[in-house]
Each structure stands twice: as C-alpha cells, then as structure tokens.
C-alpha cells in the first residue's frame, strides 16, 4: 500500500466513525421521542468532526473525559456502540448496566472515563487523570471534551491553571457549538473567547474549523504530538454548530431555522465524502459505509428493545463496599 492509500484508508475510517455517530444519534433521538428510550438524549449531530478528528489521534491507552453530549466522543474512542445503545434504553448489558443512561456512558476498557451530567466537571477529572498517568509513568495522554458553555464555570479556570502549572499531558477540546442549552453562548460570554481564556492561564490554544474533520485531525495530530513529547497541555477550540435542539425534544425555537440550515450545508461528513471522492474513492463505497452504519445502529436499537431489563436488585449494587445498602 502506498502512503496515499494508507492515508485514504485512515480517512475512510474517519468517515465511518462519523457516520456511525450520526446513525447512533439518529436512532437515539428517535428512541427518545418514541418513548422507547427513557430520559433525555443530547445529540451531537453536526459535531461529529470534532470527536472523530481528535480521537483519530488517540491510542487505546489514552483517556478521554466527556460531557452530557458525549455519544460521539465515546464511539470515536472505540466504545462498544451496542452496549451504549442498550444503556440508553436502560437495559441489562448496557455500558453501565442501565444505571447511567445517556449522560453517564463510560467505557473504561477503551479509556473512556465517562460522560458527565455536570457542565465542566470533566475538566478537573481530566487534570487528575493526567497527574496519575505522570505518577505511574504510563505512556498516555488525556483528551478532555467540553462545550462552550463550560468556559463560564469556575472549574474551567482552575483546570487550565492546574494543567499548565504541572505541565500535564492533557488536550482540552472546547466544542463550540454556539449554544448553551437554550441560550446563545455569545450572549452570556464576555471577552475574547475560550482560546484567549486558556492562553491567559498558560495553556497554548489553537482554533480550528470543527466542521472540517481533516482540519481537526491535522491540528489534533500536531497538538497531541507535542503533548506526547512533554510540552504540557494544549487547547483546541473547535467551532461547530448544534444541528438539533439541546435535547431530542427541544425544537430550538430560539434561533432562526436558516442558521441550522446553513450549518447542515457545512456537514463534516459530506465534506469528507467529497474529499474522498476527489481522491478516487467510489461514491458507492461511501454510500455503503453510511448504509452499514445505519444498519449497525438500527440493529443495536432493535437489540436494545429486545434486551431484558436489569434485575431490580442491581439498583443496590456497586454503591460501596463498606456500608452498602442492605
């Protein structure tokens, strides 16, 4: 295989991951809307390029921390999508045995240290994970995903300072989709933005078009390389757009429909597909990848619906060893 075709294979893998994330979330939203999946789902549809472009540069030993909008991070890091779908449905065999749900998906086997229901809470956790990696002399880094809304929470400042101070191997990834729940984030954020704030605390920052997965990939490769080389933390500000509402049931009436429409025109999946086609990959192959992704996730959803509920007794396990509920 030539270098180019190696590269193409890598890009096809990225396309596949993005397609899988999208397909996963389309099923997840549908399942939530139909009531088959309980609780609330926060889709990252339109933002797949960030998760995939970053995680394409991570190894299994590397760790990630994630957010309430974390399906994409998990899948891109290699988490078991079937177990995730079961988890979303609250079934036995789910990633967390049905105890976590969409907002608490974790897959420690692939270094996915957990989604988080608290905005910004992953930042200190990522710092400590990196500190432990340092202490145990593991060869690994941590990627810490969070939204643009998190830059207004205190732990953002604390974590940036902390990581810079101890020169920790962390890539901070601010997924800037423009909104914090129902509020346009620019309406509640002053100053020069996430990158400027990170730099003010000593973490070098780079801005990237998060809707261009190859751009994310290139920048992430560079930053992660530096981190592995011991340069300390780096910050990636990835601009993107949240196509859907805040949750699967939010109609996003607080923003002009044209805005979301325009974002759909910048779809990272279609853009990568166009690059691949220009590189000579057959349109049919691309269609096949997307169809396969759709089929995979539809089958996971069917499996989830057919899966048994967890045993009610599981509600009382894994609380703690000493003083566990009787």
């Amino acid at each position, binding site marked *: 295989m030539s270098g180019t075709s190696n590269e193409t294979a890598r890009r096809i893998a990225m396309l596949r991951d993005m397609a899988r994330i999208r397909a996963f979330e389309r099923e997840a939203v549908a399942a939530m809307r139909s009531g088959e999946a*309980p*609780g*609330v789902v926060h889709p990252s549809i339109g933002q797949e390029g960030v998760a995939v472009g970053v995680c394409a540069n991570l190894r299994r030993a590397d760790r990630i921390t994630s957010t309430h909008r974390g399906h994409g991070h998990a899948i891109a890091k290699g988490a078991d999508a079937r177990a995730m779908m079961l*988890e979303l449905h*609250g*079934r036995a065999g*789910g990633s*967390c045995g*049905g*105890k*976590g*749900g969409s*907002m*608490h998906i974790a897959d420690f086997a692939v270094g996915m240290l957990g989604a*988080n*229901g*608290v*905005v*910004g809470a992953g930042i200190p956790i990522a710092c400590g994970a990196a500190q432990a990696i340092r202490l145990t002399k593991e060869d690994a880094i941590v990627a810490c995903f969070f939204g643009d*809304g*998190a830059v*207004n*929470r*205190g732990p953002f400042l604390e974590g940036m300072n902390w990581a810079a101070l101890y020169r920790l191997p962390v890539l901070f990834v601010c997924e800037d989709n423009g909104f*914090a*729940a*129902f*509020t346009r984030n620019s*309406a*509640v*954020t002053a100053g020069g933005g996430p990158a400027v704030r990170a730099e003010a605390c000593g973490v070098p920052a780079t801005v990237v078009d998060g809707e261009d997965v190859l751009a994310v990939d290139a920048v992430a490769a560079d930053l992660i390389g530096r981190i592995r080389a011991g340069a300390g933390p780096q910050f990636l500000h990835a601009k993107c757009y949240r196509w859907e509402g805040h949750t699967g049931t939010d109609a996003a009436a*607080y923003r002009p429909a044209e805005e979301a429409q325009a974002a759909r025109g910048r779809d990272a999946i279609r853009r990568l597909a166009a690059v691949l086609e220009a590189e000579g990959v057959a349109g049919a192959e691309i269609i096949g990848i997307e169809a396969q992704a759709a089929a995979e996730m539809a089958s996971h959803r069917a499996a989830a619906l057919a899966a048994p*509920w*967890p045993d*009610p007794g*599981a*509600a*009382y396990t894994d*609380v703690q060893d000493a*003083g566990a*509920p009787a």
Partner: protein
Amino acid sequence: MTRMTFAEAARRALAAEMRRDPLVWALGEDLVQGGIFGQYRGLADEFGTERIVSTPISESTIMGAGLGAALCGTRPVIEMRIADFTLCAMDELVSQIAKVRYMFGGQGRASLVVRMPQGMWRNSAAQHSQCLEAWLTHIPGLVVAAPGTPADAAGLLVAAIRSDDPVVLMEPKNLWTAEGDVPDDVAPIPFGVARHAASGDALTVVTWSATVPVVEQAARESGVACDVFDLRSLWPWDEAAVIASARRTGRLLVVHEAVTVSGFGAEVVARVVEGVGPGGLRGVERLGAPRAPVPFSPALEDAMRISPARVAAAMKRVATT
C-alpha cells in the same frame, strides 16, 4: 380558584410579586427563554431582561451575586435549575448567604429566595435526581420550604419572596405538571404551619414535596385512618401539630423521597420521640430512599420510587405494630 399546573401557579405567583415590588428580580440560566420547566415563561417580555436575567453557566456567581444584590436592597430570586447544581454553589449558600446576617451582627440581611427543583424526574439518573432538603435544614440561617401542591407552590413562593430571611424553596420536579386549584389572589403561606391533609386516629403520617400526592393517595386507599401532615416548610416545621397528633395516635410514619439515612425524617422521628417521650409511641417508621444513588433505568428507578402501594403497606405495618 383556578385549576392550573404547579409550574403555572409558580409562574403567576412570581409575576404577581414582581408587579407588586420593583425590587424583586430573578437570575438563572435560560430564564429569558422561560426556564426549563416553563416556570418563567413570558416574564422577560413583561419585566425586561434586567429583571429576568439569563446568566452564564456560573452557579457560584448566580448564588453569590444574588447575595450581593440582596445586601444592596433588592430581593433576588435565585434559580438553580435543579438542586444538584446547587452543589456548585454551596459555599455561597452555606458559608455566605446563611451566615451573613449573623456574622455581621445584624448589619446586613440576605433577603432572597433560592429555588432548587429537586428529585426524580423522567429517569434523570444520579446527578440530576438528588433530594438535598435535609442538608439545608441543618444549616442555621436558612428557611427551607418544600411545596407539594400547586397552591402551596404559589403561596410558599410569595412567602419566600416577602420573607426577610433567605428561603430555600425545594420544588419537586416531578410535580411541575401536576394540577390543582390555586387561589386567584395568592396569599403568603406562613412558614412552620403544616397542611393537615387528612384526619384520622390510627396513625400520624408526615410528608412533604414530591411524596405529598403519593401519601394522599395511599391514605385514601390503605384503609388506615391516617392523620396526614404535609409539612410545606421543613425549617421551621410544624412540630407542635405533628407532636400533638403523634401523642394521640401513638404511631408515626414519615415518608420522603430523599435517602432515609440522615434524611429529614430522622429529625422528625427524633423530635417526636423527644416530644411525646419514648413511651408515648407504639410504632415508628421512616420510608425514604435506600442509601444508593438514583439509577437511570426505569426498572431500577421504579424499584426505589416511593409508590402509593409501598406507602399504603407501610401505613398498615405501622398502624398494626
């Protein structure tokens, strides 16, 4: 009287207070968009964005700014979105708001309201379902209220806004859409006065917040003659009424959604035992959550939920011990 939801009752009560007193204002995330339960819907249109303030995701500062604003003479309503997020603002609530009047020898007061909708709601899982009322009853300086009906949602909010003390209002997330009759002109409900929700001689039942309708249903269906108290406020709470009832029935059941261990039910039991004397009681039970986080799956969450059937069974158990 008009029939309306809990959220609508609370919304109207806040609007009425904001009309009455220009010093009342509200701050929190997404308030201009109506709040996540619709309890602020339309208020920004009427009162403008200087009185209905959509804030950044900055819980510490939402809480702390509320205090600063109170110290300068306004009456802020601090919206925490859900009680769990108050964990991001505990220093501001517990070490600042609750203590400021005392520490400064009475020079300043934190006349403000902290709204923290709490409890299980649609499989929100461990980080979005916690009940923390017991914590706040433990903190000197705070008044703690926990409405269980639309009328009380309105009346306690009005009381909280008019109170010169800092009042924490634990609104049950699961009841936002519950309906009930609400007075057209909402009067403040005095803190420390329980609602006597049912009368009976067999058993004293104490509850509040999300479990109020559950207990009421169980009392109707259990066949036990229950003397039911919806406490409405947990600090101060209506010790006198509960103790008098328990002295009469000799049996006490406390029902709450929060974890039983070190829940406010423990305080109720301890006070009643101290009040009537241990010899005065024949049966005592607390029905709350096990000491486990709230799980996501309906199959697991339901196993922990306080249902009318479980309450009715407890009523029968305690009434016959």
